[in-house]
């Protein structure tokens, strides 16, 4: 914060001249890098396809409308499968995530040197692989179908839920834990009375949030053969049945909107 005097008044500026120059050059450098990247991307783009895009998009749009409404009779079962994949996957994930979270949280882990890094490894490894890839792997192991989808969603969600949950555990008010400890409660009683009531709202919030995400993720699992509405989508795309594709997209949109509405309601009710 530079302050200098001129004519007996103290003049205040936010930054010194030197700092201003550094900032100015920083922005200039950013601009140069942007222009340079633009050139590279432009050189490796086949511009014919880009200029052609509006025409093709318009072409697909005319083919896809109106949606083939009578196809809806065949979509009831797949969308039900999709919902089940998301819901079951989330429930299994939560069961697995709770112990992992307690092992990973700084204040509840039994061993910071051995068990905590292990729990963190589980969290990172399950989070870092997309559910679509998990599904591909699982289909190879347990065969195609809904079950592979459920497990893929469950594994993918463990890390996410455990991470958010262990952060909630680390943020609890320690004095409540102290108070329960001071009564002579056992380790498990301290957990049930001192910790669990404090993280319950976070837990419920995480559960519905992840369920909401999983509904969206499970809609595409069918693309690789793991059941749900994605199977219909991939089949329709393969035969270029655009009116069916548009109907499937509408059904997915409606399902996602409903799930968002439900999770918003649930979260509102908790807080």
């Amino acid at each position: 914060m530079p302050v200098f005097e001129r004519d007996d008044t103290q003049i205040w500026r936010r930054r010194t001249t030197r700092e201003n120059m550094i900032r100015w050059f920083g922005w200039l450098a950013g601009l140069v890098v942007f222009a340079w990247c633009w050139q590279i991307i432009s050189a490796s783009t086949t511009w014919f396809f880009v200029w052609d895009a509006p025409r093709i998009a318009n072409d697909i749009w005319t083919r896809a409308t109106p949606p083939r409404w009578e196809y809806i009779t065949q979509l009831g079962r797949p969308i039900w499968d999709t919902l089940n994949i998301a819901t079951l996957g989330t429930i299994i994930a939560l069961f697995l995530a709770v112990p992992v979270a307690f092992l990973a949280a700084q204040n509840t882990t039994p061993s910071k040197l051995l068990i905590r890094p292990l729990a963190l490894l589980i969290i990172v490894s399950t989070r870092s692989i997309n559910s679509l890839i998990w599904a591909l792997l699982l289909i190879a192991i347990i065969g195609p179908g809904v079950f592979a989808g459920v497990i893929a969603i469950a594994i993918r969600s463990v890390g996410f839920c455990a991470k958010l949950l262990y952060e909630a555990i680390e943020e609890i008010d320690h004095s409540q834990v102290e108070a329960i400890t001071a009564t002579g409660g056992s380790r498990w009683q301290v957990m049930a009375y001192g910790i669990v009531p404090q993280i319950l709202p976070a837990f419920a919030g995480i559960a519905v949030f992840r369920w909401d995400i999983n509904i969206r993720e499970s809609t595409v699992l069918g693309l690789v053969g793991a059941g749900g509405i994605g199977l219909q989508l991939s089949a329709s795309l393969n035969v270029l049945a655009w009116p069916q594709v548009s109907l499937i997209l509408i059904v997915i949109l409606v399902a996602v909107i409903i799930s968002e509405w439900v999770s918003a309601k649930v979260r509102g009710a908790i807080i």
Partner: protein
Amino acid sequence: MLQLRKLTKTYKTGDQALKAIDLDVPKGQVLALIGPSGAGKSTMIRCINRLVEPTSGEALLDGVDLTKLGAGALRRARREMGMIFQEYALVERLTVMENVLSGRLGYVGFWRSFLRRYPQSDTDEAFRLLDRVGLLHMADKRADELSGGQRQRVGICRALIQNPKLLLVDEPTASLDPKTSRQIMRLITELCRERDLAAIINIHDVALAQMFVPRVVGLRFGEIVYDGLPTGLTPDKLTEIYGEEDWEATIEKVEDEDETEAAE
């Protein structure tokens, strides 16, 4: 009943919070522990029930050295020591009744406590205590709906339902307004008299301490620099405990307050 022998706590950072404290608290005696922030008041009471592990020395409760107990024996010893906290430390999302009953956790098994199936004698006692502190009508409210004074009363019930021999009280009035502070201090001292309980009350309000307790212990930099009657706290003594300040006003104020107290 409680004897501290050269109780010492050195934190990992090298700070000596307690320097070989020697203190005897006889049965039924309420004493106030005063001293500036960071003098080691909180550390001292936490070293007694081992929420903080003392570095060396002994803390004898009825002849049993608390510092050497294993996990199970420590839990049984903690049942004998009720603790009351500055920010109440109630489990905010549980009801008043659940909070009071949580004082019995050391006596009931995990599943009974988890399913809230406490013995009838415990619930009877909980209702009796809530009635005693005037919160019977609040039994089914959630703890976070209560005011500060009400929460501290629940905290007192939770400590007393343990049926302790000793109360460890950490700044019970620091988050309360002056009137509620006096009510809480009066309640604690009254209950100790009724039950012949010993208590160590950490408090930084000297006037409040002088008003309610028969013995004051002054702590400075982890050492006891005063131990005696509240009336013995002269400006010189307060300077020794807290450092240089104009103490006349504090002491006069106490007398004034005593008069208004008597007038009420």
